[in-house]
């Protein structure tokens, strides 16, 4: 599995996507696609291979992936779709495309609570009733520490100002 950690080579990502023979295994197992018809990993790869990469980068799709890695386990062509999507996200940020609000909200929650999805009061009640005890607080400070030290905040803020 090839990984795209850098934002250097969009052409490499495109060439990689071109290997896909569109069998749809990624889509068959995708938990996001089951609940959100705006996310379609096979079409994302198709668009990258023969369509406009600009549309892909500016679109919402790349931000919807949950990074569960099911598709990269089952893809018969060994395409690491989640890694490819991370590469595209980095690329998008670099050219000043910011994630949609839904994604930003997730990140905010992560920074504030240490969790992408903090347990709701309903879940807390349910746990109480089942005698499962309270969920421990996540280490929000550590996440904040990471985000500051990796200059994530600075990067996002500077891009935001540019817009």
């Amino acid at each position, binding site marked *: 599995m090839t990984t795209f950690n850098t934002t250097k080579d969009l052409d490499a990502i495109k060439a990689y996507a071109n290997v896909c*023979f*569109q*069998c*749809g*295994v*990624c*889509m*068959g*197992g*995708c938990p996001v*696609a*089951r609940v959100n*018809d705006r996310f*379609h990993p*096979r*079409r994302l790869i198709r668009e990258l291979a023969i369509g406009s990469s600009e549309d892909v980068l500016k679109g919402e799709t790349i931000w919807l992936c949950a990074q569960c890695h*099911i*598709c990269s*386990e*089952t893809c*018969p*062509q*060994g395409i690491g779709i989640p890694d490819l999507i991370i590469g595209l996200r980095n690329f998008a940020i670099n050219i000043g495309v910011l994630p949609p609000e839904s994604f930003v909200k997730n990140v905010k929650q992560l920074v504030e609570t240490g969790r992408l999805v903090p347990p709701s009061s309903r879940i807390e009640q349910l746990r109480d009733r089942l005698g499962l005890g309270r969920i421990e607080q996540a280490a929000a400070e550590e996440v904040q520490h990471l985000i500051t030290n990796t200059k994530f905040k600075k990067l996002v803020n500077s891009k935001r100002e540019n817009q």
Partner: protein
Amino acid sequence: MKNEDIRIGLYVCHCGFNIAGVVDCAQVAKDSEKLLGVVVSKDYKYMCSDPGQEMIRRDVEELDLNRVVVAACSPRMHEVTFRKCVESSGVNPYLFEMANIREMDSWCHSHVPKEATEKAKDLVAMAVAKVRFLKPLDTLKVPVVSKALIIGGGVAGIHAALDLGDMGYQVYLVERSTTIGGKMAQLDKTFPTLDCSICILGPKMVEIARHPNVELITNVEVTKVDGYIGNFQITVHRNPRYIDEELCNGCGECTKVCPIEVPNTYEEGLGPRKAIYVQFPQAIPMRYAIDRDACIECYKCVDVCTEQGRYAIDFGMEPQDMKLDVGTIVVATGYDMYDPGFIKQYGYGVSSNVVTALEIERMLNAAGPTFGRVIRFSDRKEPKTIAFVTCVGSRDKNAQIYCSGFCCMYTLKNAVLLKEHFPEMDIYIIFMDMRTNFKGYEEFFNRAREMGIKFVRGHPDEIFEDPETGNLILSLEDLSKGQPVDIEVEMVVLSQAVVPSKGTKELAQILTVSTDNSGFFLESHPKLKPIDSATDGIFFAGSSQGPKDIPYSVAQGSAAASRSARIMSHDEWEIEPIIAYIDPKKCRNKSVKCGVCATKCPYGAITVLENQEAIVTQAKCHGCGTCVADCPSDAISQQHFTDAQINAQIHAALDKNPEKKILGFLCNWCSYAGADLAGISRHQFPPNIRPIRVMCSGRVKREFVFEAFLKGAGMVMISGCHPADCHYISGNYNAEKRIKPVFKILENAGINPKRLRLEWFSAAEGEYYARIMREMVDFINELGEDTIRAENEKAKPLLERMIKRGT
């Protein structure tokens, strides 16, 4: 012959645009005119064409040429053609040399035409340099044993055996199992006509048993192959049946009294068989066998056989080795079905209602374990809905990368049969692509759709069982709808991939033939020699060379028979005289105890007696040249690959800008063929390599490496077949042993040892060759010309000393 007596004709082929589209052929011909010994230098559109060959013949006559060089395609392609042409014009065929400017130049450097042209000039100069040192040779004639060995009694092997037998040749058909028939005997029906499989195969099997020229030997494995074309000595290991084939008449009384039942492999384990058994009622030979792993030795079978008046059972039978002498070998060892349990998400082995194609094939068979009923195992009910899934383990980089070819068709066949038997059944075929590209196949696909079988384009991400109903849920994207769907069925059939049969790798090593990247046997040329192996006299038929359906396998069986007959129809066969010879004056065994050559020869072709010069037995020598490279007194030489000839090539290759060049020694069987494949597949890499073909990496002397660096080479590569795959059994091991210490010597001399590379790659690894070429050129660029030059300069005295010591 004195230099001034050498008259070389040089011909540069355009090969249409194949070469001329990249290389400036006229320029190559013009610049090469000046090379020592060249009398005439021409370029022409197609040298292999009739007018091209005629041009050579005319020039030989008019200009009194005595050597010919053709710069064209790979010698693996047309060396024989031009040797014949040269011979017909009265010049010894071994006074000819080819420069490979197509596979190794224009095809793999098409993006850099200027450099490719420069490389072509070097390759021509190397060939001209070598041809000047060539000596006329007489071809060796060897007698041909007009018997053939066929390994594997499936449908391909059966047809090869019958054809050769009908032509009047003696045939040994050896089979690993207790019966012939192979995979085809397991099938219910055959596509696209739905003939009953055993009904059409059975008579052919009977014919094998009855044929006066075919000797069938079952329960054997080939363990050793010696010799060469026309004269192979085979050792087969025969496992005992514990039944005397002469005495058993196949009455079957024994099996009735046998108390032991084990799963029947012929029924894919779905039905039982006894410990004393025949695999199926049509088995040939119709003789029982005892499975000693299952047998409890109650001897009830012995009692009943004795009552019948026969004494066929013999528990004292021992395994035995048999020797067979044959002239040609046909390998028809077939394939195995891939075990889909390796890919967990298909649920095979997890849910009992997921079965393989061969399992349902047996169920559909009226004589099969369920007598034609299709049942699912969880509740023994007949399913009302079934899904077939194709490409299970095929076209999958996690399993087999290749398309197994005939799975689409057998999936259609099984679905059509099911629909015929059970018209009410709901049948899905879940497919990625439907490949139906032979006669009558697309029509069969139409028929399946007309019958109401539902086709869904897609591939399941996962198949899981509903624990309550035992039903299976396939989650996939219906590609035509573009939406994720769940399909629930009562039973799933997986169309497994086809993989090389067990033992293919081991047999390849015994035969000293190659396998491809997928593990199937590798043919000599993908288009023009699809039946031949790289070893003369050994042929492939059927799925041993790659997945094939029945008509294709039958055609290949007959083709292999015809290729064998082409050799066996002669009393004698000409073989290349590329063998070792010993200069008795130089051999030091007369005065000191040496005999190194005899220890290196993989064929025992060299005899060394005390106080006598070593002697090469010509008929035993295969011409690898390993003894030549290891002789401490330089007394052995290899015809057509002498030290003088190879040194001449080294000098010519490194004449200009040596620092940028990689001097490569490529073994004829794997590496050179692999490099050819890189060109044939148009893999592009920088043109720094100057290849020298040797028969085996074992031929490469240390002095060649020193000589190359002394001449200023940037890098040197020695390459051969993968360990254990050597065409000459152990040549590559000897090369490794000999070259390993050279890294240290170079380092001591001040040369970066990374500038020498020892590489093993097969004839199938063109892409790998291109990759190591790019790596090596990157390393040259990284070091820089100045460093290379300085290192070489510094090492000069030591290199000179090493060469002197060696000679």
